[in-house]
């Protein structure tokens, strides 16, 4: 052990961790376990995020400059910027985060894609309303099809997809009531509802208890 005269404490190193001055060796005893020397782990995600941001900023700057140079106001560059932003959200916040479920990643990406299309619809003002009229129900149908495949492939854990089925049905009803294409939104509702009900029916107790859990109803002790 070593002794620090300034702090009046015994330490296990030649430099006092409290005042950083040199310590004096007292004896060979070393009763302290101490801590391993840790090299800061540099997160690959962090590096990827920074690289994407630098590249995105550089490209965005060039695109904005070119767009402003050739036309008096911003037009196509905004679409490119929105696409870069969508890419950032999908790659960094969805696919590179710690979510263990691939299905959850795909579903979140679909949500981000819809918001992107909604923005394009509003910005471009060409045949406006198409994002609600067609894009929303089509994305809901695609989501239901993906959900179906995951439910079949991972049938041992089928209950993991039930809440998504229910939410897709609810969003289908929302899309129907806010004026989406009649047939497309009807197909979206029917498909997702059919999938949810058949999962509930064939799932038995495991399915119903999943719904109870998600809605926080009477936990079994």
């Amino acid at each position: 052990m070593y002794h620090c005269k300034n702090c009046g404490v015994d330490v296990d190193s030649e430099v006092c961790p409290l005042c950083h001055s040199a310590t004096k060796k007292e004896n060979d005893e070393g009763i302290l376990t101490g801590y391993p020397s840790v090299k800061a782990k540099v997160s690959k995600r962090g590096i990827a995020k920074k690289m994407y941001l630098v590249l995105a900023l550089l490209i965005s700057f060039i695109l904005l400059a070119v767009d402003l140079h050739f036309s008096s106001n911003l037009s196509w560059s905004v679409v490119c910027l929105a696409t870069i932003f969508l890419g950032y959200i999908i790659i960094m916040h969805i696919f590179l985060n710690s979510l263990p479920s691939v299905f959850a990643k795909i579903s979140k990406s679909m949500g981000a894609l819809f918001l992107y299309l909604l923005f394009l619809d509003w910005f471009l003002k060409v045949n406006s309303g198409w994002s609600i009229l067609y894009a929303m129900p089509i994305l809901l149908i695609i989501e239901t099809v993906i959900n179906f495949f995951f439910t079949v492939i991972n049938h041992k854990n089928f209950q993991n997809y039930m809440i998504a089925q229910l939410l897709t049905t609810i969003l289908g009803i929302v899309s129907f009531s806010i004026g989406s294409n009649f047939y497309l939104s009807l197909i979206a509702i029917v498909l997702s509802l059919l999938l949810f009900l058949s999962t509930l029916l064939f799932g038995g107790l495991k399915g119903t208890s999943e719904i109870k859990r998600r809605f926080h109803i009477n936990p079994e002790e």
Partner: protein
Amino acid sequence: MNKETTMWGKLDNTAHLFPVISTSKTSNVFRQSVSLNDDIDKDILQSAVESTIKCFPGFGVRLKRGLFWYYLEENPKDFPEVREEDDYPCRLIDYKDTNEYLFKVSYYKNRINIELFHVLADGIGCKMFLKALVYYYLNLKHKDVLEMPFDDELTLEREDGFQLCYDKHSDNKSNYSNLRALTLKGRKIQNNGLSVIEGSMSVESIKSLSKKYEASMNEFLVACYAYAIYQTNYGEKKPIIITVPVNLRRFFNSSTTKNFFAMVYATFIPTEGDYSFKEVVDIIKESLRSQINKENFKKTISYNVSNEQANYVKWVPLLIKNLGIKYTYRKAAKASTTTMSNFGAISFHSPYDKYIKKYSGILPMSLGQSIKSTVASYDDLLCITFSSSFRASKVQREFFRLLSSMEVKISVTSNGENNVSL
């Protein structure tokens, strides 16, 4: 065989906060460690962890997101391999690494560490789990000589103490501090690193000093901490507020392993000139004593539980609820300078006690609190551990120098993260 139903349970009242506010900087993952006399055998530790999880099913769970609340669900996956300590303590739990378990077990030389996400339990719950783990470990290691002890402190109880003690008719006004506390500032360690400085000393020496100042050990140590902060921030008029978690089990006769604690705020406002250490001890003692009583805790519980049970909160979707929780937390975080958590005097049954050397703990950083400390004692060895994201160690130095000036013999070790910066 595929089970028909999965066991699940609601989070306790305090636990709702943690999944929402946890980030890589504020992980809400705390550590408790036991140092043994001999180096740890990895394979035996692995078997001991598996046995302990079977014994404490409440810890073999994963966190899931419901429509209105988070909840805990039994985890069907195997517990991952225990690893030799190779990272900073109290890192955010990466569910991919832990197979979605809410705690990690690691070892270093003769020390077993458990790092636990606060959603699962508080310090006392963690202590129960770690004690059982150590019993299993020693039992496997010394099969011929040891039998598993019956320890009435080890309980499987997973009741929500807050709900049990909630009195609808009790006064449920908030008694949280509205003061804006002094925030300690300094240069931080890179990559969310954590500096750990651990001081070991004799329990008896601290006990006799506490007696001298007519305070309990906890009051005395909190006062030392407040005085160290006061000395290193001389001239600051803002209140020094030290959050002290209090175990509610002894007040409400519960033995749950879930979270069941309340915070009290040891407050020292240095408004007038110079304060002697004796004066600070008296102020802190008075501040703590005025808050640590059953009536006060009843009010806190009523306030928290009534908020959770209010219909306007209950049926709000989780996504929106989380925004509200974050906002409230950010506001409340300004009311504390730091935290000192006392795990108390830990004991192990004979003949296990002769294999055990030390008990210690480490707290993670939280919003506005870049230095925290824990106190734990085993036998006659008191261990005070400071964790900090600051490069400098001014407060720790003042704290240990203060004790050393009172003739306390202290041994200090650190993880070397507080080296001199250029």
